[in-house]
């Protein structure tokens, strides 16, 4: 008997017409499919590269390494306060323009202009070439022809996106669609205390997305994170989400929550009780007024509500917690079987040492869970690559995994058709 009502079709999977048959994970082990994804997905979709708070002043910049597209971009706030993106390459002889010490590592800072380390060519914050060393030695060179190459860049709800195609097929708002864009009514801008985690994961990027777009695994994989009484109760109950939403290439899972403070001591770690915090966040919520309905948050109207996790195609997650904080995930592919995972936590800045300590436990818990997820993926990747098994059954709590792989295949198919048609 389902704990939450299912759609009239009997399941979320059938409701969204995703098919119920076992699926192939060939798309997560095939180097050929990965090469197609680079062109079909990562050079066509809007990619989130960060938030406006990372560019606090005129001249603030950061670089983003996009190995999946064999490129690097620099994002900068101009003197006119506009956020712009450029390919991170000098027009003279192709040197990487902005880097410090290690050419392949990301960097950030504040500057008045970009100066190439190689021959000193300079560029204004709007990309215009402003100085050429010994300009008279060149042949008919007009600096106006040698500005930085712009990358399509748009900002939504404080999130900075780039698009590497020559001409994006949709603007950012249309790409995100009517359901994701409702989230702009959520007060992201008040949550500026940032914790940024990064690690390399030996698995295809879609496998980690799958790990975080179903919670079927949570009572089992993470059982040792909680006192035995909680783990046993959680496994016996199993996990069910009250609501799933599929919106274009994007997808949402929303969960019910618990009030940890109302649990008996045998269900909690003692430190959760003393610091009034835990994986779900600080027990004492910050003042964050927002209209759940306008923001499309907690669509099932749960009380208590747990979290809403939006998987934004291709590789970006915004997860909003009922306890008044949010986090983002990015999965940056580096090969068919590796990717760089980034997890960023955002809180309303702690006002007191006590609040700061509560944030510490929430962040530390996030890391411990994430490590278990990441390590398991390597175990999955290696055995998928054995190709001993070709089809895998997905249940209704894994409906979003099914959707991601379907959308990835659709984008690759569409790209192949466009290529064949010579568009």
């Amino acid at each position, binding site marked *: 008997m389902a704990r939450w009502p299912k759609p009239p079709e009997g399941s979320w999977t059938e409701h969204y017409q995703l098919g119920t048959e076992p699926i192939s994970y060939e798309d997560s082990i095939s180097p050929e499919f990965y090469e197609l994804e680079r062109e079909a997905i990562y050079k066509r979709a809007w990619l989130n590269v960060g938030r406006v708070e990372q560019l606090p002043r005129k001249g603030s910049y950061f670089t983003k390494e996009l190995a999946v597209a064999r490129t690097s971009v620099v994002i900068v706030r101009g003197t006119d306060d506009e956020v712009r993106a450029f390919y991170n390459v000098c027009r003279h002889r192709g040197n990487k323009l902005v880097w410090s010490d290690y050419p392949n590592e990301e960097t950030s800072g504040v500057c008045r202009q970009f100066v190439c380390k190689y021959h000193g060519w300079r560029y204004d914050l709007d990309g215009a070439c402003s100085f050429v060393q010994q300009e008279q030695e060149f042949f008919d060179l007009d600096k106006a022809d040698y500005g930085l190459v712009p990358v399509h860049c748009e900002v939504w709800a404080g999130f900075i996106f780039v698009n590497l195609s020559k001409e994006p097929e949709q603007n950012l708002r249309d790409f995100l669609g009517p359901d994701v864009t409702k989230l702009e009514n959520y007060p992201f801008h008040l949550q500026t205390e940032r*914790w940024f*985690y990064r*690690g390399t994961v*030996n698995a295809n990027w879609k496998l980690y997305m799958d790990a975080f777009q179903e919670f079927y695994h949570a009572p089992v994989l993470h059982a040792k994170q909680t006192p035995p009484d909680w783990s046993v109760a959680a496994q016996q109950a199993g996990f069910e989400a009250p609501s799933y939403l599929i919106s274009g290439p994007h997808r949402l899972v929303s969960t019910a929550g618990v009030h940890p403070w109302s649990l008996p001591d045998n269900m909690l770690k003692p*430190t959760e009780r003393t610091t009034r915090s835990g994986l779900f966040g600080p027990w004492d919520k910050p003042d964050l007024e927002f209209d759940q309905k306008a923001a499309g948050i907690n669509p099932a109207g749960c009380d208590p509500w747990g979290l809403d996790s939006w998987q934004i195609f291709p590789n970006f997650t915004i997860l909003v917690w009922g306890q008044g904080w949010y986090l983002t995930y990015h999965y940056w592919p580096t090969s068919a079987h590796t990717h760089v995972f980034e997890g960023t936590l955002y809180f309303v800045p702690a006002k007191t*040492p006590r609040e700061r300590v509560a944030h510490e436990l929430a*962040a530390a818990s996030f890391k411990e869970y994430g490590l278990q997820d990441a*390590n398991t993926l390597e175990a999955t990747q290696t055995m998928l690559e054995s190709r001993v098994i070709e089809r895998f059954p997905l249940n209704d709590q894994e409906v979003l995994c099914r959707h991601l792989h379907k959308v990835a295949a659709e984008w690759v198919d569409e790209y192949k058709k466009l290529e064949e048609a010579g568009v």
Partner: protein
Amino acid sequence: MTPMTETKTRLLPPEFADLEPFAATWCLATEHERFERRLATPMDEMQAFYDAITARYEEAMSYCDKFPLDDMPEDAVNLMHLLYSMIAVSFPVECWGQGRVPDTGAAYLDLLVEPGP
């Protein structure tokens, strides 16, 4: 010992002299240091630190709460770092009985940006 040298060697506020034996090991400013220290420390040592700091948790928190977060004296910041370390060792002590979270041999996750103090 002269008062002068006492001030120099003391890391924590005088009220927390009983925690001073743990300060040199566990007053660590970054999550990276605390995590590495946890992995390198035997369980019985973590248990001893955990027992000592949890017994003083509420007093330590109340002491730190007297100061604004962005203007804490050095010994109070050290006490905060000790509380962060309490959180770091709480997982092994309360749940796993080992420094590393179970089944995470190959995985790592570096915290590259963290808020102060």
